[in-house]
């Protein structure tokens, strides 16, 4: 499985296009991916991954796959509500319209990491790459954090200040 160009030694100063900025944003061209986290799995079988994708360009794109060596299989899921029940379902992709931001979050879109290759614990990080329809690929480092921390970690900036 192809891994990232950027190893652990990446720093904000790196000239590598996939290097994370100091604020933990990963980008390729006009696609920016931030707040990348994996929820520490409660059982070692599967884990959920979350992030925020911003498309700052003039053309829409679509996230079509996520790859990582940490999982044997990866699916993109959304939660749908039907007759009062929440049900996850796999989707083939997630549109990111131009000048738009999509938040992956519990109860909404999430990436399912199935057939985990190793146990993931808080403090670990995994590499992953987000593949887009346009051919763009954004390489990210996802930090593993406990479920209880997610709501704070994933709260987006535009939420701040409103109650």
């Amino acid at each position: 499985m192809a891994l990232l160009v950027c190893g652990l030694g990446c720093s904000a100063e790196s000239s590598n296009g996939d290097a994370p900025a100091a604020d933990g944003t990963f980008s390729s061209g006009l696609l920016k991916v931030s707040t990348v986290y994996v929820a520490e799995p409660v059982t070692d079988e599967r884990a959920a991954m979350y992030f925020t994708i911003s498309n700052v360009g003039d053309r829409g794109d679509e996230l079509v796959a996520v790859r990582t060596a940490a999982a044997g299989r990866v699916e993109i899921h959304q939660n749908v509500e039907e007759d009062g029940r929440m049900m996850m379902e796999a989707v083939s992709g997630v549109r990111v319209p131009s000048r738009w931001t999509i938040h992956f979050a519990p109860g909404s879109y999430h990436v399912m990491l199935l057939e985990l290759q190793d146990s993931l614990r808080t403090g670990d990080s995994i590499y992953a790459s987000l593949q887009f329809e346009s051919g763009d690929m954004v390489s990210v480092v996802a930090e593993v954090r406990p479920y209880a921390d997610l709501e704070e970690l994933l709260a987006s900036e535009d939420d701040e200040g409103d109650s």
Partner: protein
Amino acid sequence: MRASDTFHARAPRLSARSRSVFNESNLILVSLLLAAGCSRAPATDPGAEYRGFLLVEARPKVDFVLMDTEGQPFDFRERTDGYVTLVFFGYTYCPDICPVHMANIGAVLKEASPDVRGRVKVVFVTTDPERDTPEQIRTWLDNFDPSFIGLRGDMEKVNEIQVALGLPPAVKGEVEEDGSYLVGHSAYVLAFTSDNLAHLLYAFGTRQVDWASDLPKLVAENWE
């Protein structure tokens, strides 16, 4: 009767994206509850102090006995009598909604005063008895709070209990090639108070700050 004419729909959320999702589901919930005889809360209604959804008609406890994670019968009514009891139906393979609910409640109880903590019982009932062994449920719950009660019984019985509690029955999804499947289930936590009636529902998206606000009120509540 403030509990009977109150419906407070404050929308908790995790992010802007999820907020819109929650608002949509809240709309669905509002319409469902309206159809069931609910009405919007007047702004001055004291019940509006709750972050959860106040039910117009409080729901009584249901008599049932399921197996706990020690393999012992657990009489729900008897064992939760007089406690604030948070009931949630889910499954341990669920990676997104179930662990977030449990983790948020667990995190808040950890910080709660002993008075509150000692008056709250959390009951998790599996909607996937096929895969959720008692050991699996115990290991899963221990991650959030070792005091959480895990119950298991056959699917038909668990669905009857859900319906009796006013929740939709769980539905097993399509079995994939590798034998895996997902289970659709209610994302609400039902909250009973010391009168053994459920007065509140907590939607997915209820934040720790919401639980931290409501749990002491639920413990102190006498509905007078």
